[in-house]
C-alpha cells in the first residue's frame, strides 16, 4: 500500500491495550453475559481494529474484503453443518456413546 495517510498507530495500539484490560477484568466479575461481551465481543472489536488500521483493509481493494469474508463464511458453514451433531450426544436414531462416556466420567466426584 503506497502513498496513503497513516492513522495514529500508537493511539490504535493504546486502544487495543485498553480493550485487552477490559477482556481480562470483565470475566473476573463472574457474570456470564458480561464474560461473553468482554471476552468475545471485545475480541471481535480488537480484530476489527487490527484489520482496519494495521492491515489497512479500509483502503484495500474491496474484493480483498470479499475474499476474506467468503473464507469466514465457509467457517460458519462448517460450524452450522457439524455443530448440531457434535454439540449433542444423542438424536432420534443415534447416540454418541464415546462422548457420553467421557462427559459422564468427568462429572463423577473424585474420591
Amino acid at each position: 500500500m503506497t502513498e496513503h495517510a497513516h492513522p495514529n498507530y500508537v493511539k490504535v495500539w493504546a486502544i487495543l491495550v485498553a480493550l485487552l484490560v477490559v477482556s481480562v477484568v470483565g470475566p473476573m466479575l463472574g457474570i456470564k453475559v458480561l464474560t461473553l461481551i468482554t471476552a468475545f465481543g471485545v475480541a471481535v472489536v480488537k480484530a476489527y481494529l487490527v484489520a482496519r488500521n494495521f492491515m489497512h483493509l479500509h483502503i484495500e481493494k474491496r474484493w480483498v474484503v470479499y475474499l476474506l469474508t467468503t473464507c469466514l463464511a465457509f467457517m460458519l458453514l462448517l460450524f452450522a453443518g457439524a455443530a448440531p451433531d457434535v454439540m449433542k450426544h444423542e438424536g432420534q436414531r443415534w447416540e454418541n456413546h464415546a462422548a457420553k462416556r467421557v462427559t459422564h466420567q468427568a462429572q463423577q466426584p473424585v474420591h
Partner: protein
Amino acid sequence: MKPIATTRSATGIPTGRLAIWWVIASEIVIFGGLLASYIMHRLGHPEWADQAAHTNTWAGAFNTLVLLTSSLSAVLAHQAAEEKNGPKAARLLLFTCLGGLIFLCVKGFEWTHEIQAGFTLTAGGFWHFYYTAAGLHGLHVIAGMVTMLIIAADARKGQELQRVELVGLYWHFVDVVWIFLFPLLYIAR
C-alpha cells in the same frame, strides 16, 4: 524492486501483496476450521471448563500484549519502508521479532508447567485442542520471525522494501488469530 512483485497488477493489487492476501485467506480456513471445531466441542463438553481452569490467564494476557505491541512495530516498519528508510524499517522488524521471541518464551514457560502438572496432549479433549491450536499458532510465529529476519537483512541495505509491508500483513493476521485464541483458551471457563 522485483518487477513482478511490485508492478504486475491484473487485479489492481501488486502481485506480491495479492499473494499474501491469498495466504491469509487460506489461513482463515485453517484456523477458522480449528476454532469452529473447538467451539462446537467445547459447547458439547461442559467438563472441559474444569480442564480450561488450569491455563494461566495472566501469561495469556501478557502474550496478547506482546503480540499487539509487535504488531505496532510491524506497521511502523511498513511506514518507515514507505518513507524509504530501510535501516529504520529493519530495526522495527527486529523489534517485532523480539516480540515473537518473548511470546515463544512465555509459551515455553507455560507448557513446561502444564506438562509437569500432568496436563499433556493426551490429558483430555480440551488439552488436545489447546496444544494443537497454540502449537499451530506458535509455528506461524516462528515462520513469521524467520521471514522477518531475512527481510530485515535486505531492508537494512535499502533493498526489497515492499516486502516489509507483506510480512507485516502476515504478522498482523497471526496477531488476529491470537486475539481469538486468548479468550477461547484462557478466559472461557
